[in-house]
């Protein structure tokens, strides 16, 4: 089950109730047993099952009240509001809800986030009409509700939210539905790659002829090894094999990318909501790999766009900010760049280049 620390608002997994230590801030917490006499009812499935309070404080209420609940649950229950009741929501706040999500659509851009992401806990009531103060548990992505919403509608709505409004989407999306995120990424990436491969296949013969012509004009005949590799690559069997294994490689790519990003987030102390949040962010950010279908520039654009969306998504999903997320996503690139600069600055690169020109090294490094 998931629990949330009343002090630092970080969530963590635990398998028991009672006194325990928050892994984020180290404070001692009391997680009330819902089966104990007088305990509040259990939380909804998929939601963190409790918010931990300090030992000695009154038993903590369920951390994630149902969406209709008017008050967030921050440790001890706040006192009832005094004075006149809160004014009704402003016109349009609750009227004519769109088709998704059922509770009134995604919060507007710039709306205060809910749960542990936002103002510190206190007795202050949320602003009138703010229906998103208790969405720490998240809103299902449209694609997670594809059975109810229709496959294509849900797919393209999710694509639009993830690719064009990533900050808002990843701030509110549920992180416990990783299956939907991976499935969505596999479909988007596979379709993009399949179109790209079909384009390669259709233009293969012309491209190879053009390359042959170009290589004839090079004095030393070019690199025959590279040409043989391209012939293999553009050949029918290789293309067919790539068609078949593309969905599998997408799954591997998503999990490996998420694993590396999560480890680096841990290193930069940004992984606050577990691996599920990272996998959700990477999965939905992979939506942009659909752009691989655009011939020529689609691949590079998709890669850069993916990095940007993943940075925003990781920052919002983990509540750690874009700085730590950017550090995690760009650290491998940064380390490689710094090492390259170091190699060149020390003159080592020139030595390698000279050695390569004088034939004292292999013509191609073994991969």
């Amino acid at each position, binding site marked *: 089950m998931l629990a949330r620390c009343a002090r630092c608002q970080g969530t963590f997994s635990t398998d028991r109730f009672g006194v325990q230590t928050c892994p984020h801030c180290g404070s001692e917490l009391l997680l009330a047993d819902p089966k104990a006499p007088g305990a509040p009812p259990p939380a909804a499935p998929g939601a963190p099952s409790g918010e931990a309070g300090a030992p000695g404080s009154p038993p903590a209420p369920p951390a994630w009240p149902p969406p209709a609940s008017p008050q967030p649950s921050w440790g001890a229950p706040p006192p009832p509001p005094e004075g006149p009741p809160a004014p009704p929501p402003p016109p349009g706040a609750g009227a004519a809800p769109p088709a998704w999500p059922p509770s009134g659509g995604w919060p507007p851009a710039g709306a205060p986030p809910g749960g542990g992401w936002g103002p510190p806990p206190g007795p202050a009531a949320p602003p009138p009409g703010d229906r998103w103060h208790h969405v720490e548990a998240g809103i299902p992505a449209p694609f997670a509700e594809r059975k109810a919403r229709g496959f294509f509608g849900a797919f393209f709505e999710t694509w639009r939210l993830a690719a064009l409004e990533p900050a808002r989407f990843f701030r509110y999306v549920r992180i416990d539905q990783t299956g939907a995120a991976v499935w969505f990424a596999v479909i988007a990436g596979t379709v993009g790659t399949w179109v790209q491969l079909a384009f390669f296949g259709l233009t293969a013969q012309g491209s190879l002829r053009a390359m042959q012509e170009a290589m004839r004009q090079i004095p030393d005949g070019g690199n025959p090894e590279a040409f043989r590799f391209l012939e*293999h690559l553009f050949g029918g069997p290789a293309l067919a094999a790539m068609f078949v294994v593309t969905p599998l490689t997408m799954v591997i790519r998503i999990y490996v990318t998420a694993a590396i990003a999560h480890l680096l987030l*841990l290193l930069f102390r940004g992984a606050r909501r577990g691996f599920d949040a990272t996998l959700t962010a990477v999965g939905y950010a992979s939506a942009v790999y659909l752009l691989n279908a655009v011939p020529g520039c689609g691949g590079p654009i998709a890669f850069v766009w993916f990095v940007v969306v993943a940075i925003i998504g990781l920052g919002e999903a983990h509540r750690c900010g874009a700085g730590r997320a950017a550090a995690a996503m760009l650290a491998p690139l940064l380390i490689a760049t710094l090492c390259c600069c170091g190699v060149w600055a020390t003159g080592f690169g020139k030595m390698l280049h000279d050695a390569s020109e004088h034939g004292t090294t292999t013509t191609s490094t073994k991969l």
Partner: protein
Amino acid sequence: MRAGWIAWRRTARFGHPEVFALIGALSFLAARFLPVLSFHYPCAFKAALGIPCPTCGMTHAFVHLAHGQVAAAFAASPAGALLAACAWAYAAADLVRAAAGAPFPAPSIRVLRAATAAGIAVAVASWAFVLLREVS
């Protein structure tokens, strides 16, 4: 069931740990049974900058290790050989664990941070080894 560095967690029979185990097992099968070295694809990093990339030699390391040639694997890429050994050991252990229904030994955050830092250090050292090998 906590032991400081490791927390033993009851997990679903097939969850994220098993996906990673399957990826590790697939990498072994590909390195052992597919003719991956027969594709002589040039390294784009080396073609552009003239120096090998940090992952140059990893394919050879995986294939050599899958065929039991430990020295050749470490000579090709120390980081690749270590990565392959760790991935395959993890895959075997986790598939056995999942089959037996045993709890998952989740390392603590401190252990994961230390392992990540060590992994980066190993990758950089391995890259330096490959660069030196190119010159010598």
